């Protein structure tokens, strides 16, 4: 059974982390410290509300996929919904895919070529991007308490846009959120993530390094990441000579370390992630999703959640107007429907996936 409080906490934590990290994206920890001291307050847009990025909007898209297809979701379904909801609006009204990462842009081109998953995810070179990890949390909400099932669903989605390490990163986040949704302690949550990715993988190595450095496996006291933690984490998991910071093995490891150090407390976990720098909006969104799932809606600082409003649809027009709270409630309801429905087994395909009529429904409904 999906706890609505935790579902909301997860998506609010994700949205808050995303918004807090936005101005710090791609900055080094020293630059963040120079500019803000410690960045803890959400920047406001012209309407007084926080401004989210692709992390929140693509997570809302994941929620839409689960609402529509449930656990019967296939990679073909995901590819079809990308074509309907992401590519078709671009073709109707050509313009930039604002805020989209290389993996999303590359996937759009691969799908336009007519490639299908898993080749669509391998065609572009950014298979390692954290684009799946950033949108994977809803799989953990939907499959709360079932890390393996959450990871399976994230892998089904990831086959469209990612390959190798990017898929591992998404599976790790989905599994971690699934266990965090039960209120399990952070150390167990990260173990659940490690259990769904190969030990001999880049992500496996960076996450284990994070666990070693964060060293908070048995501590329930939140720790603010200090210079030592920051330097050690950067040395162990950051790829120094790459101009891009959106590498899943790196981002997921930084997010997990921030969450472990924060002992699962929302504010400390999220601010830890942001202040570690690199792909700060995504790392903080992941840390926020984990901590929010564990602590529930009440665990997200009120001053943050009060500024989280409906998505603007800047990156994905299809999700404009959708509020993360409503998406969380809908995810919980979708999970409930499956659990109470006839003859449901994990991963079993439903007879008829609910087809809501493509992108217009997505725009309206979700």
């Amino acid at each position, binding site marked *: 059974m999906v706890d609505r409080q935790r579902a909301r906490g997860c998506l609010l934590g994700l949205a808050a982390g995303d918004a807090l990290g936005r101005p710090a994206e791609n900055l080094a920890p020293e630059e963040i410290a120079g500019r803000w001291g410690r960045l803890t307050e959400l920047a406001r847009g012209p309407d007084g509300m926080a401004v989210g990025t692709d992390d929140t909007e693509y997570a809302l898209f994941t929620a839409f996929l689960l609402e529509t297809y449930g656990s019967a979701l296939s990679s073909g379904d995901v590819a079809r919904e990308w074509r309907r909801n992401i590519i078709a609006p671009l073709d109707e009204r050509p313009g930039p895919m604002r805020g989209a990462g*290389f993996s999303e*842009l*590359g996937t759009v*081109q*691969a799908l336009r*070529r007519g*490639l299908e998953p*898993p*080749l669509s995810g*391998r*065609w*572009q*070179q*950014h298979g*390692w991007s954290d684009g799946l990890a950033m949108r994977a949390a809803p799989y953990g909400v939907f499959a709360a308490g079932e890390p393996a099932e959450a990871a399976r669903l994230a892998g089904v989605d990831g086959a469209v846009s990612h390959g*190798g390490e990017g898929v591992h990163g998404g599976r790790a986040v989905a599994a971690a959120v699934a266990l965090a949704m039960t209120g399990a302690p952070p150390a167990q949550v990260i173990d659940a993530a490690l259990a769904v990715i190969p030990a*001999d993988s*880049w992500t496996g*190595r*960076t996450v284990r390094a994070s666990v070693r450095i964060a060293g908070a496996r048995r501590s329930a006291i939140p720790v603010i990441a200090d210079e030592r933690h920051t330097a050690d984490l950067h040395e*162990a998991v950051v*790829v*120094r*000579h*790459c101009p*891009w910071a959106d*590498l899943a*093995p790196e981002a997921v490891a930084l997010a997990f370390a921030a969450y472990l150090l924060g002992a699962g407390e929302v504010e400390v976990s999220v601010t830890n992630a942001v202040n570690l720098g690199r792909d700060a909006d995504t790392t903080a969104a992941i840390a926020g999703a984990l901590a929010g799932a564990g602590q529930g809606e009440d665990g997200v600082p009120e001053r943050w959640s009060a500024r989280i409003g409906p998505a603007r649809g800047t990156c994905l027009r299809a999700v404009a107007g959708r509020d993360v709270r409503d998406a969380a409630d809908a995810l919980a309801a979708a999970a409930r429907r499956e659990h109470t429905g006839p003859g449901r087994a994990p991963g079993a395909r439903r007879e008829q996936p609910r087809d809501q009529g493509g992108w217009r429904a997505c725009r309206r409904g979700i």
Partner: protein
Amino acid sequence: MGLAIGDAAGWPAARHRSGLLAPWTRRLARELDEFAEEHRLTTLPVPFTLNQPVTALQVGPSDDAEWLAWTARGLRTDRRAAFQALAGAPGLRVRMSVRAALDNLRRGIGPPASGHDNPHFFDDAAAVRAVAFGAAHPGDPARAARAGRADAEITNAEDGVHGAAAMAAAVSVAVVGEPVATVVTAALAELPEHTAIRCAAGAALTAAELAGDAFAAVPLLDAAVQDHVYSYGVAAAQTIPVALALTRASGGALMSAVPAAACLPSLADSAPALTGALTGALTGYAALPGGWRRSARVLPGCCLPCLAGADLAQIADHVAAGRTDRATPPHSDARRMTGHV
């Protein structure tokens, strides 16, 4: 020499070679680029020497030829040890895959993880090096591919390693005078189904077949392998398919294949070099234009300073001598060898 000629023919060679000049010349070029942007000028600042020696910017080989020469010289050195010895060398300029691999080796992460835990695992740095393994194992594509893969795993993974194996295998059959079709087949045998590089190779070969000529194939190849989302220029899944396609479309003639490869601006760093390696071997040293042979022969040391002034033809002869040692006699083979390295 074919690889070096292709390397020299692509516009990025001048960029690489400008690394030999004082840093302020490159800073000035960046500032002029900014100025041109600001004033909406179409005049592109290209590398210049100003009051520096001008030889560096004459047409000549650059990064790819140097990495091939470095590999050819160290065929008997343990590959991991060879890379570790490079770390910290002054003036070293490397691909991102190699830089990340050197960092991994420093942290105690060896192959294959050093090539796998790597943001540019997909690039063709190892494919360029693999030409040396193809030359060192003439007529034995399987062995050439094995050696190419072992070296490639230090800096690359997946398509980056498959691409290296494909180049090693293709060169290995090209240097013994097999026909173009056999060369292409040897490469394809190293590209597993359901990989991006295999898919792109299929698309590129089809495009070349439709065009019927190397230069005519240029726009079709651009459409077949490039999405232009981000110009890496050096993704193995793009450059090797182009090299194979142009080799086939030109019937193995370097003089028509390399200029066509150089016409794909985003791939012009290494696609002409890889194309040159394959077609140089098929064309043979004697048939290569004398001006290009002379210009491409001496390495500048722009990426590997230890190779400044090294004579590529001599290095190729040494590789050929290695073959002679293993009782593969003929003089004509030695000429072919020089023809491609």
